């Protein structure tokens, strides 16, 4: 059954290339995926794992399984896939490329999260590479060609560094299966941890390897931006949590000071860059890079103290919440662009007068991104900050993680600044030329937005619904 979750989008994508009606096939495939995922998650006995040996020496299996964190990531993937298929405006005559690429990227993401074998975990992520390259390069906007090259070469470089780290680790372990992951000999842990941090870090846009992310998300067509910022980015964090922590715990501890400094780079430096942005899409792209810092903080807390019981749930919850909120924001941004023809904040204004529903939804998403209580991101962020100080008493003195947490709290202020300012300048205030004739959000575009908004509210009020899987 788990194989169906990957095969459905894959076969649908091939069918679209073969000539079936693109939009319809994509919608059916994503709805089918949600159905199968619901069944798989509610009935663990039915969701039997799947294993096919593809190589004898070393033993590599195409094996799929549903564990705690991967269940949450699966929910994230299928929800964002459904909404991505509904979002954005496909240019005339390019439906084939648009929808098949979206489904290929979705298949890659789901495959990566469901894999219980290190090799296919890595390989499925790469499935998204070429569709992303083509989508951004052909159907993107703005500086699309440069953005497409940047994301592809950066991700390729990150992947190959990651591969070296994974090979070094599996060389010691002798097996590629997740269940065999254990700490490797101490003298190699530092190297493996470094390679994994650089490799996964590039994929997650850790400072200073982050410059590919914002232009790529800004130039990408909406479904690609939603899938990449919302789902694909979490792959690197998932990898660090599941593989990095198990294989090289002392190594991660060794590099803790560096992780702390770099994640502060994400939060503070990139946060300040975000405040400086003049376009909505670039602001969102940079904000998504900034928020990765919080999740890295949870990972740092876990690295400093592997018995930290709050850090892992915090990271997973924030990954989920951020994925949903950024997908919602990108989806609504594309609506704004369709209605007004521009994303320059200086050229927008008073959109709430002509598009009240859009303004409400965007406000909800923006508040979620800032971390307003009642919405999912708050639950995640507050848990991350608590994790920084978990099992801490004043007599311990302030360690790296504690100081980092204190400084990271300013990130909340920073995100409030840029988000509220952008919202005020775009939606409130007097009407301007570009917004006076805008129509409100269309019924079809409301569907993805409401799905995501409701998810944010439900998880925000009752986070246990997600945390129950861990």
């Amino acid at each position: 059954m788990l194989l169906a979750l990957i095969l459905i989008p894959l076969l649908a994508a091939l069918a679209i290339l073969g000539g079936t009606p693109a939009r319809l096939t994509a919608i059916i495939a994503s709805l089918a995926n949600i159905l199968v995922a619901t069944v798989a998650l509610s009935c663990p006995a039915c969701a039997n794992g799947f294993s096919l040996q593809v190589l004898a020496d070393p033993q590599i299996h195409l094996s799929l399984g549903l564990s705690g964190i991967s269940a949450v990531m699966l929910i994230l993937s299928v929800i964002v896939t459904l909404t991505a298929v509904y979002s954005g405006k496909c240019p005339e005559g390019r439906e084939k490329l648009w929808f098949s690429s979206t489904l290929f990227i979705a298949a890659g993401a789901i495959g990566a999260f469901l894999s219980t074998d290190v090799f296919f975990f890595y390989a499925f992520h790469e499935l998204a590479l070429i569709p992303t390259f083509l989508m951004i390069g052909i159907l993107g906007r703005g500086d699309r060609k440069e953005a497409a090259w940047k994301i592809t070469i950066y991700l390729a470089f990150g992947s190959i560094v990651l591969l070296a780290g994974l090979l070094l680790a599996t060389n010691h372990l002798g097996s590629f299966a997740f269940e065999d992951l254990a700490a490797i000999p101490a003298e190699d842990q530092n190297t493996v941890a470094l390679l994994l941090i650089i490799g996964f870090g590039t994929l997650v846009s850790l400072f200073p390897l982050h410059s590919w992310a914002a232009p790529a998300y800004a130039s990408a067509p909406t479904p690609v931006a939603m899938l990449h910022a919302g789902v694909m980015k979490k792959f690197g964090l998932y990898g660090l949590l599941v593989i990095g922590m198990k294989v090289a715990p002392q190594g991660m501890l060794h590099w803790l000071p560096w992780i702390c400094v770099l994640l502060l780079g994400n939060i503070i430096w990139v946060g300040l860059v975000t405040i400086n942005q003049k376009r909505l899409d670039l602001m969102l792209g940079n904000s998504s890079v900034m928020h990765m810092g919080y999740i890295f903080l949870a990972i740092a807390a876990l690295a400093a103290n592997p018995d930290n019981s709050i850090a892992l749930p915090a990271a997973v919850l924030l990954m989920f919440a951020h994925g949903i909120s950024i997908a919602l924001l990108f989806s609504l941004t594309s609506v704004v662009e369709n209605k007004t023809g521009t994303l320059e904040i200086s050229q927008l204004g008073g959109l709430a007068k002509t598009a009240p529903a859009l303004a409400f939804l965007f406000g909800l998403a923006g508040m979620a991104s800032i971390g307003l209580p009642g919405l999912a991101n708050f639950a995640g962020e507050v848990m991350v900050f608590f994790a920084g100080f978990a099992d801490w008493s004043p007599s311990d003195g302030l360690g790296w993680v504690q100081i980092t947490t204190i400084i990271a709290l300013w990130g909340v202020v920073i995100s409030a600044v840029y988000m509220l300012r952008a919202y005020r300048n775009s939606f409130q205030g007097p009407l301007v030329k570009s917004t006076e004739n805008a129509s409100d959000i269309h019924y079809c575009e409301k569907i993805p937005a409401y799905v995501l908004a409701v998810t944010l509210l439900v998880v925000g009020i009752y986070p246990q619904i997600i945390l129950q899987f861990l």
Partner: protein
Amino acid sequence: MSPHIIEFITVGFGLLLLMFEAFSKGNKSRIGLLAAAGLAVILGMLLCPAPCCYEVPAWMERFYDDNAVARFYKIIAVLSTILVLLMAVDFRKVLAKFSASDDSGSGTGEFYCLPVFACAGLMWMASATDLVSIFVALELVTITFYVMVAFMRRNVGSLEAGVKYLILGALSTGFLVYGIAWIYGALGTTDISLFSNLLEEGTFNRSYLLFGIALMLIALGFKVGAVPMQLWIPDVYQGAPTPITAYLSVASKAAGFLVLMTIIKPFLDSEATRHAVMCTLLIMAGATLLYGNLAAISQNNFKRLLAYSSIAHAGFLLIGVATGDFTSVSFYLATYLLMTFAAFFVLALVRSEEESDEIDAFDGLGKRNPVLAFALTISMAALAGIPLTAGFWGKFFIFKAAIAAEVSWVLIVIAFISVAAGFYYYLKVVKAMYWNAPRQEKAIAVPIITKVVLLVLTAAILILGIYPQPVLDLLGK
């Protein structure tokens, strides 16, 4: 029936073809199809050996060995030759234009017969276990290639490529023979199977031996395209007829690597010479990787880009040879065959239609023929090493071998840079196909042979990308 009969059958078949060609009139490309059919029969003989005797006779044992690895490389050789012949059949328009003074194709008949001889030589190289028989087989292959490279005699590029290949090839042959002489002088025999015992005894002059090995490495480095003997590759690959470029790129390289592995194995195993040989090979690998990848970045001609990329791939393969993991090298070469031939089939077709090898000729191919563009995209993705294609597994095994052998981190970083660079120049072609507008709107028609072959190759690349075990089973692992 002894296994070495197969090479004799191949040579006999080639001679028969030549005679048939001399007396046949009409469409010469039928000979190509006939040759391919005959080689397919030989391929069948290789894949399913008849149960009757397969013992090499005692008098042949010194020169010829039949084992799983040898048979694997023979399959690579025969498969490459079949694909080259099929490509040549579809390439006949260009061949005819540059061969005779009219477009009748009257002088092109031999073009379909020569690969059969080269194939026999490649097959013998796969089984050779004595330095002398290696040399004889190598010469058969090389001399046939001299003729094939310069075949389009009314094309200046082809002639220039032929002359360059001839002169540099003759030079490398000189190095080879000189190296054989020094090794013979040091060890007292040319029989490779005796080397490991002699090296253990230790009664040889180490400097003579190392000098001989160095000369051999130079000669074999020329064959596989390793720095610093790689200068001939871009010009010869670009000038030669496209099917022959593909043949050089795959079969000649594979045979070269097999010979390198056969000769170098006893020296890598023995303590006396291991360190020197391994270090030299690793340095060559690093330099080859850097040269091939960095030079390919600026190329605008697809054929020349493929030439530089083949140098880059040789760099990866040299890492595998240096670490002693010969299985990874063989696997890489098998997948390299699939990816390279797919790319060359598309190139040959575009060259026939557009009369140009430049990357601009591929502009807008995504619109003109989506299936062709998809096949080339898969091929480029495989060459770049994107997972879920066969090409990734090759690089995976080589990286694994390098890490297990604990090679210097400098080489690993060079390999990182190479892969990243590779992504750029391979995707440059994908970009041209999909991002740029076509120069003319006319759709490209794909001949039936090319269509079928591309379908099979693309499917193989994708299937092996998920399930590589069958290739390893063929190797006997």
